C-alpha cells in the first residue's frame, strides 16, 4: 500500500499508512465493475483526512464514473462532505487539515504540489449546502467565474456564457427580465440554481454538490433534482446527501459512508435493493443514522 501524504499543498513523507488503525480489521472494499457504467476518469485511492490529530476519513478508494451522478450517503459526521471537499481541495482552506492518499483526474494527481489549485477548481466546480450567491446582480454572479478565468473575449461572449449557463441551470426563463437585480433577492431554490449556473459558467468537467437541497423546500428540491438529471448528460456529478430517497432518485452510483469509512459502493439500484453489508442495510432501512 503506497501512501502519499500532503498537507495543504506541501508534501511530507510518511513511511506507512496513517497511525489510526481501526479496531476491527478493515474489510477491503470490493470495487464493483459495472459493465453498464461509464468509464471513470476520477479515481481515489486510500484517501484519508486528518483534522489535527483526529482522523476523519479512513482509506477511501472509489472510482467516479464519467457523465453520471454518484451519490455519497451516510449519517451526519460520516465523512462524506469531508471526502467531497478533498476532490477540489477545498479542505486546503481549513487550518490543520491534512489529506493523504491519491486522487487522480485522468491519471493526474490532484495533490501534486506542481498542480495549480485555481485551475483544478475551474475543472471541478462546487455547489454548497446553503445557497451562497455573491451580493451582486444575477448577471455578475454568473459572470464572476468567466471573468476571473478570462473565458470571455468581449462583452457579447460574456453575455452568451451567462445566458447559456443560466439556461443549462434552468433559471434563464425566470430571471431574464431582471438579470441586473441582486442575486440575493431570488428564492432559495432559485438561488441554488444560480449557484449551479455560476459553477457551470466556468466550464467544469466535474460538479461537486454538497447537500444542495438541504436548505430548500420539497418543490424547489424536485426542480433541482430534475436539473441534476439533465446535467448528467454533460457533466460528472457527485452529490452528497443525507436523503436516501434523493440518492435513489438522482444517482446511478451510490457510496455509503459510516464513521469515516466507505462501507459499500455500487450501482444505486443494487445498493438500495440488495446491499451486501449489514450496516448499509441498517441505514437504508432506517435502523441507524
Amino acid at each position, binding site marked *: 500500500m503506497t501512501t502519499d501524504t500532503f498537507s495543504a499543498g506541501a508534501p511530507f513523507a510518511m513511511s506507512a499508512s496513517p497511525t489510526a488503525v481501526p479496531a476491527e480489521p478493515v474489510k477491503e472494499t470490493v470495487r464493483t465493475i459495472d459493465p453498464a457504467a461509464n468509464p471513470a476518469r476520477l479515481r481515489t485511492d486510500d484517501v484519508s483526512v486528518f483534522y489535527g490529530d483526529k482522523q476523519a476519513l479512513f482509506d477511501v478508494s472509489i472510482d467516479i464514473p464519467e457523465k453520471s451522478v454518484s451519490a455519497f450517503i451516510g449519517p451526519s459526521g460520516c465523512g462524506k462532505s469531508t471526502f467531497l471537499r478533498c476532490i*477540489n481541495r*477545498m479542505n486546503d*482552506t481549513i487550518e490543520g487539515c491534512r489529506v493523504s492518499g491519491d486522487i487522480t483526474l485522468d491519471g493526474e494527481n490532484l495533490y501534486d504540489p506542481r498542480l495549480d489549485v*485555481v*485551475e*483544478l*477548481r*475551474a475543472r471541478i*466546480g*462546487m455547489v*454548497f449546502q*446553503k445557497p*451562497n*450567491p*455573491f*451580493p*451582486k446582480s444575477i448577471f455578475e454572479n454568473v459572470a*464572476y*467565474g468567466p471573468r*476571473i*478565468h478570462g473565458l470571455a473575449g468581449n462583452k457579447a461572449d460574456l453575455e452568451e456564457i451567462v445566458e447559456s449557463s443560466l439556461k443549462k441551470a434552468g433559471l434563464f426563463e425566470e430571471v431574464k427580465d431582471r438579470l441586473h437585480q*441582486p442575486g*440575493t*433577492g431570488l428564492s432559495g431554490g432559485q438561488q441554488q440554481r444560480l*449557484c449551479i449556473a*455560476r*459553477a457551470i459558467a*466556468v466550464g467544469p468537467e466535474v460538479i461537486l454538490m454538497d447537500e444542495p437541497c438541504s436548505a430548500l423546500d420539497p418543490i424547489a428540491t424536485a426542480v433541482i433534482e430534475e436539473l441534476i438529471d439533465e446535467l448528467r448528460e454533460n457533466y460528472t456529478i457527485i452529490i452528497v446527501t443525507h436523503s436516501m430517497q434523493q440518492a435513489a432518485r438522482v444517482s446511478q452510483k451510490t457510496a455509503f459512508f459510516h464513521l469515516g469509512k466507505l462501507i459499500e459502493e455500487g450501482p444505486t439500484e443494487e445498493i438500495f435493493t440488495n446491499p451486501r453489508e449489514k450496516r448499509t442495510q441498517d441505514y437504508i432501512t432506517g435502523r441507524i443514522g
Partner: protein
Amino acid sequence: MTPMLIAAVLLVLMGLGYTQGFSRSRALLAADGARLHSRPQYHGALVALWVLVPAILVLALWVMFGPGVSRAFIVSQLPADIVALEGSQLNIAIARIQAIASGFGVAGEVAPWETAAGETYAQFHFLTLLLVVGAAAGLGILALLYARKRITPALRARNAVERAIGWLLLACSAVAVLTTFGIVASLLTEAIRFFTFVNPLDFFFGTVWNPRFSSTGSDAQGQYGLLPLLWGTIMVAGIAMLVAVPVGLMTAIYLSQYASPRMRNTIKPVIEVLAGIPTIVYGFFALVTMGPALAALGQAIGVEIRATSALTAGLVMGIMIIPFISSLSDDILRQVPQAMRDGSLGLGATQNETIRRVLLPAALPGIVGATLLAISRAIGETMIVVMAAGNSPILRANPAEPISTVTVTIVNQLTGDSDFAGPQSLVAFALGLTLFAMTLVLNVVALMIVRRFREQYE
C-alpha cells in the same frame, strides 16, 4: 456638602423603605399564607422608589426656584440706592453679599451694610437648606408609610419596578441626546451673537483671516474669513486619509485573511496601542522627529519643505488614525460569511481575487463607515496641528507650507485674556458650529453611501 447631605439622607430613607417593604410583604405571607403576586424583593424596591419620588420633586423645585428666592431675599436686604442701580452693578453687589455669606471674602473695602446683609443672608441660606432637606426627608417618610400601607398580596410590585427601571434607562439615554441639543443650542446662540458683529457672508466666504485683538488699541475688528482655516483643515485631514486609508485597509486585509492566528494576536494589540497614545505625544513626535526629517528629505531632493507644515501634521495624524481604520475594517471583513469566500474559492478564484471582488464589496458599507468616522476624527483633531502645522492662517495650496486649521484657531481665540463680548472670542463658537456641521454632513453622507452601496448578504 449640601448635595452629599441630601444624598445621604435619601439613601438612608431608601434603605429603610426597602427593608420595610420587604419585611411587611414577608409578614403578609406568614400571616395569611396568601400567595404574593411579587416576591418580597420587589415590594422592598417599590417602597424604596416611592421614597425617592417626593424627594426628587422637592429638589427639582429647589433647583428651579432656589436661586430666584435667594436673589429676591438679598435684594430685600440691600439699600434702596443699590437696588436702583439695576443691571451688572446690582449683580456685582449681590455676588459680593453671597461671597461674604459663604465666608470666602471679597476684594476691596467691605461696607457695614454689606456685612450685615451677608450675615442675614447666611442665616437665611442655612434655614432654606434645612427646610429643603427637611421637606425632602419628611415627604419621603410620608411616601414610605403610604407605600408600605399599599402592600397587599395582589399588589403588582414586580411590574411597577420593571416600569420604573424602564423609565430610568430612558432617562439615561436622554442625557446623551439632551446634551447634544444643549451643545448645539449654546453654539448656536453664541454664533448668532458673533454674526451680529460680522456679516455671515464675510465669514463663510472671506479669504483673509486676520482678527485684531482689541488690546492692540485699534477699533477695527479685523477680518474673519473662514476659507483659509477650512482649507487648512481639509488639507491636513486629506493628507491624513491618504496615509491612513491605504495602510489601514491593507493591514486589515492582512490581519483578517492572511495572518496566522498567532501573528494576528501579536500584531493587532500592538496596532491598537497606537490608538492609545495621547495626541499631544503625537504632536511632539511631529514637531521633533517628523518635521525635521521631512525638511531634511526636502533638502535632499531639492524641494523646500518646512518643518512645521500641513504635510508634517497630516502624516502624523494619518499614523494616528491607522488603528481606527485597520481595527474596524478587520472586524468587518471577518464578519463576511465564510460561505462567500468558499463560493469564490470554489470557482477557482485566488485569495486575492476573492478579497477584491467578493469580500471588499460585501464589507464596503462598513469600511466606508469606518473611514468617515476616521475623517471626523481627523477634522476635529487639535493637538497635532497646534504643534506641527505652523499656525499660519493663509490660503495656500502647497502642503509643504505652514497652515492653520479651524481647531487651532478656536484654541487661539479662546485662550488668553478674552471676554465673550467681542467678535474676537465669539468667532470661536461660529468656528465650532462650522466643525459640527461638517461632521454632521459627513455622517449623513456616510449613511447615504452605506444605504446606496449596501450589498445584501445573509
